[in-house]
């Protein structure tokens, strides 16, 4: 077993774990060998290649122990809030209350991947009328019905309006099956009309002030529900403190992304970066611990960058990745064919932007919620993707489609067109179901093609007197 940074299999992690322990590895309460999660049904780990650092071990253990953490919180009498179709707003509010723990039931969409066939969630979803024409988020319905994956929350919220049809349809089904939901409106973010008072949102989009006010009002309803459920007031002071803690997570993620995505040698694999970014949404149900996990990961990346150590070859093609993958294995696949992720937009870039701390907290939260890339025009989102891809020096863009998702079919075409127009980069769209084993040859071929095309462009650009074709 080497000490240098690399991606290793679960078998190799067994050895690595003992090695780290023998060197005095100190772990949190949820620590332990990754192998134990396979015994719990997380079979996908057997097919993944994971980073070999102690920081990555902690990250994986943190992610895979969330169910235990929720049950423990429930047993301790903490109030559980399930925030559906909400990538980062209600959890920030909920975590501002000391006795409340928030989580995203939509996160169940990874269960069919992580647990492969051992989970009953999809079968339950099928049995209740939500079949495979829906996006994998349908696993959420099965999770509610089986109660195998999280304790039932006492308060369930769902944003609707300019949101995806899959979640709003499935959430309605969940409500009809007996789980009351607090629906709150998320209006379509439109450009301000000439002369209309407008507000600059975190991340750079702008919106009419009237829409921000509307969202603020809606979040006010959520606030009242949280107060009622928690049995204590959610004051502005508490919200401000909660926002500051959320920003502590976001600042770490921003630095982690900056270092990992801009380093010449890739210091952290795409898979761990994806999992780390997901922490921004609901802190994996423990905000304080999420900060610790990110600190350790950031230290590891800083050390590797300083030592000029990478997990991938130096010439790996820099790829900007759009949308989260239903099968984590695909992030390995990109790296296996010579690529590396140098930037990402996993549907929640707004949850990575700092929440303004110089505004009244509800105003700041409303602005952040409206900055969601999915609630505006897909052209806005494509613009941000193009800007970020340029900033991180991407050589190619992969748009990962989510099967059955209401937004993907048309959105992918718009993003591809705009990225090509503005950056002239090669773009490929792939569709990633929860388990890609049967499709792996096809996916591999498509990813190989874009990597090879990028290498070809790189070579052409290096030859003097030749058009590199990198910009149109």
């Amino acid at each position: 077993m080497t000490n240098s940074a690399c991606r290793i299999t679960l078998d190799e992690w067994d050895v690595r774990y003992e090695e780290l322990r023998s060197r005095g590895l100190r772990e949190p309460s949820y620590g332990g060998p990754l192998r134990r999660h396979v015994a719990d049904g997380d079979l996908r780990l057997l097919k993944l290649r994971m980073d070999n650092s102690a920081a990555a071990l902690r990250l994986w253990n943190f992610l895979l122990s969330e169910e235990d953490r929720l049950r423990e919180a429930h047993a301790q009498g903490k109030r559980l809030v399930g925030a559906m179709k909400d990538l980062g707003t209600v959890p920030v509010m909920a975590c501002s209350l000391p006795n409340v723990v928030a989580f995203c039931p939509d996160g169940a969409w990874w269960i069919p991947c992580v647990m492969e066939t051992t989970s009953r969630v999809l079968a339950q979803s099928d049995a209740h009328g939500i079949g495979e024409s829906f996006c994998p988020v349908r696993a959420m319905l099965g999770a509610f019905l089986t109660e195998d994956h999280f304790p039932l929350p006492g308060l369930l919220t769902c944003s609707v309006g300019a949101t995806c049809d899959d979640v709003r349809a499935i959430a309605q089904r969940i409500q009809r099956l007996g789980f009351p939901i607090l629906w709150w409106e998320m209006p379509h973010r439109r450009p301000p009309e000439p002369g209309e008072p407008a507000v600059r949102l975190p991340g750079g989009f702008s919106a009419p002030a009237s829409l921000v006010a509307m969202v603020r009002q809606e979040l006010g309803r959520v606030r009242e529900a949280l107060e009622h459920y928690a049995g204590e007031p959610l004051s502005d002071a508490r919200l401000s403190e909660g926002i500051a803690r959320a920003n502590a997570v976001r600042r770490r993620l921003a630095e982690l992304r900056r270092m990992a995505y801009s380093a010449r040698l890739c210091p952290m694999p795409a898979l761990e970066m994806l999992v780390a970014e997901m922490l921004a949404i609901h802190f994996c149900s423990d905000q304080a611990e999420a900060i610790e996990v990110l600190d350790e990961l950031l230290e590891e990346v800083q050390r590797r960058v300083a030592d000029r150590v990478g997990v991938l070859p130096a010439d790996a093609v820099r790829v900007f990745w759009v949308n989260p993958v239903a099968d984590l294995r695909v992030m390995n696949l990109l790296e296996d064919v010579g690529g590396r992720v140098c930037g990402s937009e996993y549907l929640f870039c707004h949850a990575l932007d700092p929440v303004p701390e110089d505004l009244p907290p509800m105003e700041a939260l409303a602005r952040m919620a409206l900055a969601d890339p999915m609630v505006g025009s897909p052209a806005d989102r494509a613009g941000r993707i193009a800007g970020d891809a340029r900033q991180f020096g991407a050589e190619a863009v992969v748009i990962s489609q989510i099967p059955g998702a209401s937004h993907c079919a048309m959105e992918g075409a718009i993003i591809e067109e705009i990225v090509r127009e503005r950056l002239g980069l090669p773009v490929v769209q792939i569709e990633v179901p929860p388990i890609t084993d049967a499709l792996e040859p096809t996916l591999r071929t498509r990813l190989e093609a874009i990597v090879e095309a990028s290498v070809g462009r790189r070579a052409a650009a290096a030859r003097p007197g030749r058009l590199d074709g990198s910009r149109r």
Partner: protein
Amino acid sequence: MKCVAYVSPMVPPEWITAHGLAPSWQQLRTVRRDRDGGTVRGVCPYAAAVLATATAESGAAALVLTTTCDQMRYAAAMVERGRSLPVFLMHVPATWQTSAARQLYRDELLRLGRFLVQIGGAVPGAETLARVARRYEAVRRQVVERRAVLGAREFALAVAEVRGFIDEGGTNVRAAITPARNISIPTRIASEGPSLALRVSIGRLSCRNNKSGNESPRSKVRSPACSETAQTPSAGIPLALLGGPLLADDHGILDTIESLGGRIVLDATESGERTLPGPLDEARLAQDPLDALVDAYFGSIPDVFRRPNTAMYDWLGRELPSRGVRGIVFRRYLWCDLWHAELQSLREASPVPVLDLDAAGDEQSSANRTLARLEAFLEMLSGASSLGKRPSSIRREDDGAAGGCRDDACLLRFDHRP
């Protein structure tokens, strides 16, 4: 007069008319791979039809779409990118419980008004709006009153007519509610001048004149078989048709049902009577006509996109028994999550059997499959009538335990799956 195309029943045509423009409710044509270049996987056939026709040469000055479904929201972005037609995307709140949602809908109507002025409309006075709104309501009432004497197709087309431009006398719509078996409308409509140019256009996003002037849209889509086989409206097994909007080509299903011994007594599709606005409050109309429109549309139309969508179930709970409905034909488009997800809830709540028909657009086998399923459904209902079961009220989610169904509903269950 410029015309403004739209496809959502949440857009009040009165509002467009009051701006001096002509609303044109679109009855779109199914996109076919061989003819139109194919559809994209994951795009519902209705959204595909909007995309296919909005990018073609069009006589419309603009297209109005709404956010009531995600696909339409993305379709608006596609049309906007194509720049073939000015497009206005109106946010229709999914929630309805709060004054904020209602206010947002009203604000969106005002924003639509500003857009209409930009494309050549005029700001309407309150009196003008009230007058137009009364005219529309009067014609809608006439259409609904004639429901019993119209065939399903005639009624569907008449409902479509009241979503279009209605001239001062309502003459262009009055023709549409004449029973099909004694109509001779083409020449009469042709002589009525400008209104013809603004009629509902079938099969294309267009407001162009019917150049020949001798064929009504209705006569174009009415199949020969239909006129020969359709029953009198009072005969046949009473059914409800529930689901998303019908495409122009889909009206054949109404004829098919009638020819098989059924009768649509409740057109609860998105393009049908379910989404007609509620009655206007005369006092409010006199005081604030826009507010009256907000109530009639946002405050009254029960639809699947609303959260929660209990109002739709309440409406079905009232209408199914009052019309004596004995079966529901549930028609949903492939990739339409909102309706698809509702199927099982409907089955659990419905006091009468539910037949699921998925519409895949240009799938060659779909017509035969639909026919076979409808035949089986109606045969089953014919047999079930001898059981003497009577429809009862629909269940709401708060009626009791989740899932399952009452015994009487289960006895009549027709759990028809592919």
